[in-house]
């Protein structure tokens, strides 16, 4: 909003109130601090009652808002919307915004954004992701995940359609359960990964990063099922962190059922009178839930969360923190850690589920005839040459190695709060490139550099030492990195449920993390190894 004293001079008779309102808005827009009534009235040479009357009218229209304790004035949410509309009309091409955008604007102070599937999302709310990260690990955080693609698959053969597409065996997926899965092309190369929630025996919802309606429709030819895009109708929030259960129980009907909701379980509840579906899922490797909310009732649910969450330390969390959290949790991200087969120019950049670290989602059970199964079976049968060429592993650079390399350049290891790196970095063994780290970050909790990597199977054994290329300051350097098992961080609370109310957790939900691939024992072994870091 620009200041325009000239508008005042040219204004026709009888528009004094409008002029005053305009000046009040300009005065509020001129600084960063909230303003008191007396201060505003004095600045514009108005009496307090007049200023109050005008401000009240502006507040009713959303152009002015008051600080939570009610004493101070600031610009309201409508001001931002008008600003945005003006930009749009000027002809700029703007990113889409989610149903939570107005609420996000109230919290954001950094104005650093990343576009996610064409939606404008905060990268951080504050100047760095630090507090947001710790909120999820120590208290609770809310991430707007509305940009996810959401499809509903309905009809008598809905299950058959999904069974045909996904590598998981969904034959026994009951209502109230969620299955994480992969889907592949005919060559057995991964197209995408995502969650399937069973809403009813003939109704499922699939959520994934990329649009996948066409693929489902094509695969469903001849089946009595329809695929409906509900992406815009459903807003989504991920509520993650150790306090997420307590917050959710406080604001939703059926607190007991929520308390008993097992890992990868789903239930319908109501928050502030809004019907919300809750799944115990997330992308942070922590205790957490995702809330699926009618888009037109998005704001009341957000408000209810923050009303109850404030005392638990709830913060809104941006995409930078989410990236750190999911790397610690060893969760792969499409376009970053693997390339979707149908979007890959290069054959060698495509991966089978085994190569993308998602082999545990492949269930070669009788009757689970999914697209790509024969190719995957051939790959697995081949093993020892001809089988999977790549393996997904974790790599870590211990603190002393960071100190050594930085020290050789006269530097200290790093300044905290650096954003995760999504640019691939080569991994070498005896001077030959054997793979690449695709996501890496300094883990604030574990205090070492960690990364998700694809390496040739011959170099993938846990404990293998590789050289990680990097640029420090202006110099090309190599760090000694060690191959470790994923995930890096795996708190027990992620999948545990308070005792005595464990009904329904013994089904496929417990399997969802793939205990066959990364069992507790293996994780402990991995931790045991990390204990030897400096020997």
């Amino acid at each position: 909003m620009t200041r325009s004293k000239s508008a005042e001079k040219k204004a026709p008779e009888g528009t004094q109130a409008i002029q005053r309102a305009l000046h009040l808005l300009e005065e509020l827009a001129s600084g960063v601090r909230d303003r008191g009534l007396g201060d505003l009235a004095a600045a514009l040479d108005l009496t307090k009652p007049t200023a109050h009357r005008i401000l009240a009218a502006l507040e009713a229209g959303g152009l002015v808002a008051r600080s939570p304790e009610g004493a101070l004035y600031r610009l309201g949410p409508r001001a931002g919307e008008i600003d945005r509309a003006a930009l749009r009309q000027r002809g700029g091409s703007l990113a889409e915004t989610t149903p939570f955008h107005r609420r996000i604007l109230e919290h954001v102070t950094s104005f650093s954004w990343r576009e996610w599937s064409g939606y404008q999302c905060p990268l951080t709310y504050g100047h760095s992701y630090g507090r947001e990260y710790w909120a999820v690990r120590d208290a609770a955080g809310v991430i707007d995940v509305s940009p996810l693609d959401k499809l509903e698959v309905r009809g008598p053969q809905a299950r058959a359609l999904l069974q045909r597409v996904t590598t998981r065996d969904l034959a026994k997926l009951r209502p109230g359960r969620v299955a994480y899965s992969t889907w592949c092309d005919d060559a057995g190369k991964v197209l995408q990964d995502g969650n399937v929630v069973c809403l009813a025996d003939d109704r499922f919802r699939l959520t994934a990063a990329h649009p996948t309606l066409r693929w489902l429709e094509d695969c469903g030819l001849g089946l009595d099922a329809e695929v409906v895009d509900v992406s815009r109708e459903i807003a989504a929030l991920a509520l993650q962190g150790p306090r997420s259960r307590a917050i959710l129980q406080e604001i939703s009907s059926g607190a007991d059922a929520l308390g008993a909701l097992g890992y990868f379980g789903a239930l319908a509840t109501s928050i502030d009178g809004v019907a919300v579906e809750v799944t115990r899922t997330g992308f942070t490797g922590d205790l957490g839930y995702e809330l699926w909310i009618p888009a037109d009732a998005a704001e009341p649910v957000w408000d209810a969360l923050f009303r109850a969450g404030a005392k638990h330390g709830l913060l809104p969390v941006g995409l930078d923190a989410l990236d750190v959290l999911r790397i610690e949790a060893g969760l792969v991200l499409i376009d970053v850690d693997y390339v979707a087969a149908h979007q890959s120019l290069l054959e060698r950049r495509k991966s089978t589920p085994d190569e993308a670290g998602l082999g545990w989602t492949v269930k070669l059970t009788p009757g689970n005839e999914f697209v790509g199964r024969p190719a995957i079976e051939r790959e697995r049968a081949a093993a020892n040459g001809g089988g999977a060429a790549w393996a997904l592993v974790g790599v870590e650079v211990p603190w002393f190695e960071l100190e050594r390399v930085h020290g050789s350049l006269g530097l200290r290891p790093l300044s905290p709060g650096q954003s995760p790196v999504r640019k691939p970095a080569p991994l070498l063994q005896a001077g030959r490139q054997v793979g690449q780290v695709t996501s890496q970050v300094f883990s604030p909790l574990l205090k070492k550099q960690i990364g998700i990597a694809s390496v040739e199977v011959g170099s993938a054994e846990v404990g293998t030492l590789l050289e990680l290329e990097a640029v420090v300051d202006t110099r090309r350097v190599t760090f000694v990195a060690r191959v470790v098992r994923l995930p890096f961080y795996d708190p027990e609370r992620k999948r545990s449920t308070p005792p005595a109310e464990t009904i329904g957790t013994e089904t496929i939900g417990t399997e969802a993390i793939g205990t066959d691939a990364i069992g507790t024992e293996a994780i402990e072994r991995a931790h045991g190894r990390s204990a030897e870091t400096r020997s």
Partner: protein
Amino acid sequence: MSARTVSTRSRWDAIVIGGGHNGLTAAAYLARGGCDVLLVERRGVLGGATLTEEPFPGFRYSVFSYLVNLLRPEVIHELDLVRHGLHIQPTESTLNPLPGGDELYREADPGRSYHNIARHSRRDAEAYPEFKLEMTHMARLVHRLQDTAPAELLGREAAGVEGRGAVEQGELAADLVRHFLDLPRAQLLLFARMMTMSAADLVDRWFETDALKAALTTSSIIGSFFSPRSPGSAYVMLHHYMGEVDGDYRGWGFQKGGTGAVAEAIAGAARSFGADLRTEAPVEQVIVENGRASGVALADGAELRADMVASSCTPQVSFRRLVPSGVLPADLLERVDAWKSQGCSGKVNLSLSELPRFASRPEPGPHLAGGVSIAPGLDYVEQAFDDCRGGSFSRRPFVDLVIPSVFDRDMAPPGQHVLSCFVQYAPYDPGEGGWEAQREAFGDAVIEVLAEHIVNLEGSILHRQVLTPVDIERIAGITGGNIFHGELSLAQLLLNRPAPEASSYRTPLPGYYVCGSASHPGGGISGAPGRLCALRMLADRGGAR
């Protein structure tokens, strides 16, 4: 090794006296190095002054020490403390409330800090990053010093140690000399000045805003009975600059569960290496036989034998109380008697029914997850010091506060909070009936100062705990209640910490070592004296074989 088998033992390779963070660190390193280790602690809980307690139901206080920044990365990673529960969240800002609802606010982001400081002075805002860079240069110098025993730095000990050890130490000394000689001349000179000058003189050359000068120099007085205008205070400031969180100098962090959880993590590491940690085992005396320390006698009469004994207590306790008279040279004992370890700080812990609302920032925000320091000007701090010099506590004290429950919601019931206030100055003896008579008046003085900046304070206090130097001495066993076991003034540093005869962690009594905060490099939750002492003991043990 199970607890049952060790309970009947009476002989170990090494016994460590005192279960504070340095004693625990020493025990962990000794056990990691292959020693059978027993640690004996007087109290029923481990931690010493790194202690979390719940004096009021639902409210957990970091009773004494409250933030972590000096903990050595070596200790963190060599002992794998993250696996044992180390969980440190960095603080990201510092708020200095000023009179009249004004403030000085500094954030991690340099751009934001520029604008915040520029509200007071554009020149200062511009100088600030340059000052920080200069201090980083200085911190790098002392940083090198704190990972080495002072005697070894000068190569003095090298001659007495055989084989590889001598070569390594010789190289280290040469390396350090090279390091210093390679320094730009200006830096070397500044470093020399910083060892003796006052913190106020240092910042005077950089800044014009009084509030900024005060804010930057408060770290120079923490735990020391002097003011920012006292010569030598610049070094104490530097001591804190060499602290780091993940490589960031001058970074501070909050440990989940309070500082007691740091002690628990180190204890967990020690146990994982096989150390036996015993509480409620006060030591009566160190046993001396054939001119060697050969164990400890407990208050209950039990005699526990070991080849080596390390004390993490203060010099007064380690040398005067625990060792039989006539064993140690009179020279050393004279130095111990002259050791400056006068308590000067107190602690006020509060339970609050709601978040504090600062006059300059009434709404909740990131500033609550940072440090808040009440020291609005150099004269203010000077006056606080003058009060104390006159024999009473500061009527308007310097207060450094954090809100632990913002970092860790388990520190207080939902919606309620704990406020931890480090307060200076509070003398060991306030006169007029002592602390029992004056404790509440001291608490009131702190509340009064806080209430000038926290608008909702007085209606929101549910409980308060007021701790004085006498309490630090009584509870944590620190003679005089000095949080560093002795001031960090030049006369008590490096070769003089705690005394030349003991600066290599060895003492004139063979087999007896000192590993507490009174040893190099000094106080703060660093684990450094404990680590260096244990490495010295392990090397000696190797040499003896």
